[in-house]
């Protein structure tokens, strides 16, 4: 019997807003535990939620990127349950009226383009972080109250690859919109997979299994592919798939049982009474969208219009930080093609070697742009530029200053070079004869002689031009 899988994803994205979803404490990552807490985050009696406007703007932007309809009224609900990571005993979420509904995105897989429909997007607050040790549980409330968007797909994916591409696309969207770091390894983008299988052509879904704690894109694909095979094996051997929660064991490369789902928890949802429904004006929604940072797709089009080739454009948008750096170099007046080359080749080599991100790279976009301009003007040769670039990495030195200090400025004065060219030609009559006899390499030799006399400071392009011009005249 042939089976097909039905896969739906729930993605939680932690927003990097300045403050939390409903309190004024800062949102930071990596700070000492329990240092970024307002009374609300620990649910002290009498505290009240105040909705974070930037979080709403972010949610609108993601909704727009996912082609969703955006509710013009904000409603929040309480999801009630007791757990040690839930300070208030309820989570403020948007159960009944999510801000975004009915959207889609398009993914490209090895078997072509596919549209994945998205059911809903809603805002909510994160819980506190738990660290379990053998005899106690430690609680870090820094995370409690960080704004989240949850994006729920329709169960329309069929393979691990599709799911992986879908998450990759969502990650690109939230990071390009500056909504989130989108770092799966650090938990700022978390993905839960719901997966069932059924005989091909069947209309009845099989029993759903949930896979949690998937912390890389690759693991999403591997976990799903494994889980499909596992469920097939269970059914083919006459067994029944249990409704359960599993996790992916990276070492074993398989999903393992976490817990069997018993009766679903009744969350006793009701409307949050501390937040009266908030009307979102058309203007507010439009402003949020029009002031939104550029999406990867839009950037791609723009790069192509700067006459970058497809390969370079795609390579650039695969990393948002590189894009930002590149955009800044171009904004400082550098030629786009040269800038792309420097960012993607020269700088990448250094980043790889030093294992740092472009954000930690010493040379500022402004100074790289200045260097590229020097090359374009012919003030320095490519070779010289690379020497200068090495020096620039020490302390982001100004390339114009370096050129002066190093005395590497090319001689670009035509009459100055012409005088030397004439001198060289006078001293090498054989080369003139060779040239007249069609031996073009004589030009190279003559350029070399000019360079020798000028200690390499003659503008090579200009030198070449003047030699050919002079040869023709003789």
């Amino acid at each position: 019997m042939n089976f097909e899988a039905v896969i739906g994803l729930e993605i939680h994205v932690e927003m990097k807003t300045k403050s939390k979803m409903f309190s004024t404490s800062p949102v930071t990552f990596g700070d000492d535990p329990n240092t970024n807490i307002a009374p609300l985050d620990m649910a002290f009696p009498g505290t009240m939620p105040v909705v974070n406007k930037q979080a709403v703007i972010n949610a609108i932007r993601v909704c727009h990127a996912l082609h969703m309809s955006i509710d013009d009224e904000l409603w929040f609900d309480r999801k009630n349950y007791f757990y040690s990571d839930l300070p208030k005993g309820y989570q403020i979420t948007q159960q009944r009226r999510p801000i975004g509904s009915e959207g889609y995105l398009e993914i490209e897989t090895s078997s072509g383009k596919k549209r994945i429909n998205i059911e809903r997007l809603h805002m909510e607050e994160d819980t506190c972080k738990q660290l379990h040790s053998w005899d106690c549980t430690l609680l870090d409330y820094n995370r409690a109250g960080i704004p989240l968007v949850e994006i729920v797909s329709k169960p329309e994916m069929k393979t691990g690859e599709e799911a992986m591409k879908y998450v990759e696309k969502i990650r690109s969207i939230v990071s390009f919109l500056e909504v989130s770091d989108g770092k799966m390894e650090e938990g700022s983008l978390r993905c839960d997979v719901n997966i069932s299988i059924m005989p091909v052509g069947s209309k009845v879904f099989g029993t759903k299994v949930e896979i949690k704690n998937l912390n890389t894109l690759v693991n999403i694909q591997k976990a799903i592919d494994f889980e499909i095979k596992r469920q097939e094996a269970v059914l083919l051997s006459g067994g029944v798939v249990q409704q359960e929660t599993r996790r992916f064991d990276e070492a074993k490369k398989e999903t393992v049982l976490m817990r069997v789902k018993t009766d679903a928890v009744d969350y006793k949802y009701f409307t949050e009474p501390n937040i009266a429904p908030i009307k979102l004006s058309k203007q507010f929604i439009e402003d949020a969208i029009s002031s939104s940072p550029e999406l990867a797709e839009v950037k791609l089009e723009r790069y192509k219009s700067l006459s970058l080739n497809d390969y370079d454009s795609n390579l650039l948008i695969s990393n948002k930080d590189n894009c930002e750096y590149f955009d800044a170099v171009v904004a400082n007046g550098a030629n786009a093609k040269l800038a792309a080359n420097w960012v993607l080749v020269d700088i990448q080599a250094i980043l790889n070697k030093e294992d740092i991100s472009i954000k930690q790279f010493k040379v500022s976009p402004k100074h790289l742009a200045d260097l590229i301009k020097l090359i374009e003007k012919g003030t320095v040769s490519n070779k010289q530029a690379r020497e200068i670039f090495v020096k620039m990495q020490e302390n982001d030195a100004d390339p114009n200053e370096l050129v002066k200090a190093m005395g590497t400025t090319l001689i670009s004065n035509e009459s100055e070079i012409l005088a030397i060219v004439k001198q060289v030609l006078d001293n090498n009559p054989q080369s003139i004869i060779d040239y007249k006899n069609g031996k073009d390499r004589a030009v190279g030799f003559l350029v070399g002689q000019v360079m020798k006399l000028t200690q390499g400071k003659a503008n090579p392009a200009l030198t070449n031009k003047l030699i050919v011009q002079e040869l023709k005249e003789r």
Partner: protein
Amino acid sequence: MSYLDLNIYEIHQALLDGKVTPLELAKEALSRAKADTNNSFEYISENEALEAVEALKNKDKNNLMWGIPFVIKDNFSTKDIPTTASSNILNGYTPVFSSEVYVRLINAGGIPIGKTTLDELAMGGSGMTGHKGFTYNPYDPSHKHMVGGSSCGSAAATSSNIAPLGIGSDTGDSVRKPASHAGLVGFKPTWGRISRFGLFPFATSLDHVAYFTRSVEDSAITLGLLAGRDDKDMTSSFKPVENYFKNLKPCISGVKVAIIKEILDSISDQYIKETYLKTVDELKAKGAIINYVSMDIRLCKAIFPTYFIISCAEATSNNANLDGIKFGPRYEGSDYQEVMTKARTNGFSELIRRRFILGSYSLLSENQKDVFLRAQKCRRLIVNRVNEILKDNDVIYLPAAPTTAPLFNASADKLSDEYLIADNYLAIGNFAGLPSLTLPLGKKEGLPFGGNITGRAFDEQMVLNFSLGLQEITGLKNLSSKEGK
């Protein structure tokens, strides 16, 4: 006579004239608080009061609250002062921030005398359920009568002249009912008029900051100070605050007054009824237009169950933060469930647990439609009818309660019309969030009883002006349990 026995605006004048000093007033109030025999206090804030007196030097003397002692219910968060909501689950809890109401009072120069007792977590109307036991009605030195609740301590302290202002909270009638039993003016302004930030929530959609004074004038003064937008409470209103005290003038002639027949009819006490009707006659004589209106008896009978379901549902969620993990008494256990279960079993009285179970039951997905959402629908119908009445009338005027303060051991027939309607109808002011004020109408066998005036949303001035007119008719102003002693 002590200046402490006067109204706020009179004390203010005496302070300006130098007839009394803030320190003398504070010391007198503290000594009366210490001598209190009615179980009014969770905490007497002697040091805080003396510090506040000291800080007056840097504050504007012309503020009417400058140097005025006040007491505040122990469900208002007060920084560095223990706040228990009279529940064992918060024993030893000292907040790290103060409620907006407390901050405004202190900033204006108010002198905090103490935190007052309440029914546990503000749930209850008897003043019998706090962790410190019964709070007594100051009008009965034999301690047989309740003062009512849940703001029992603030009612007792204000009526025994410990302070001219007692801050409370009102979710069903928790200020306006005890005001009736204690001969006080009890005012609950419109929902959103006063910030709830720092008030421990009982039932958010019904909770109001409210307060006791001994005159309508003092009620107007206090509102002017407490009303206004607070960015920490998203539900607080941006509507401008009026100068309620300056604009205060008796207003009866031409005022359209609605009397809801079904509610009046459910009262059996003839003396209370007659006293009330006499004031109605006098209002008429002074030019008020009296309209007897009707409210479907089924709606009237639904007020209490509707209130109970909505308040319990919200309460079970609002109090889910009290789990023994973050603050309050801590009990060890092998897992989080055990820690929470122990804290909540030991921390809440049986009555509270019963309310939580009822609230949870009504919110369960299998019951929500039939119970919680039905109560919400009912609330909407009641609110619609009340707003209809207030479209044609300026105020609704009725007795505040069907009886004087009950005996502690009295048992009400909870299915009688009197209990279901007259004893619980004040909750309509919470359903609709309307400004609602109780003031004294008379006394029966030494115990006071009051009337209640409810007006349109944000029409506090009308409620206060009409009440001032009524106060002139009754002549019952600045009542105190002290005069009877």
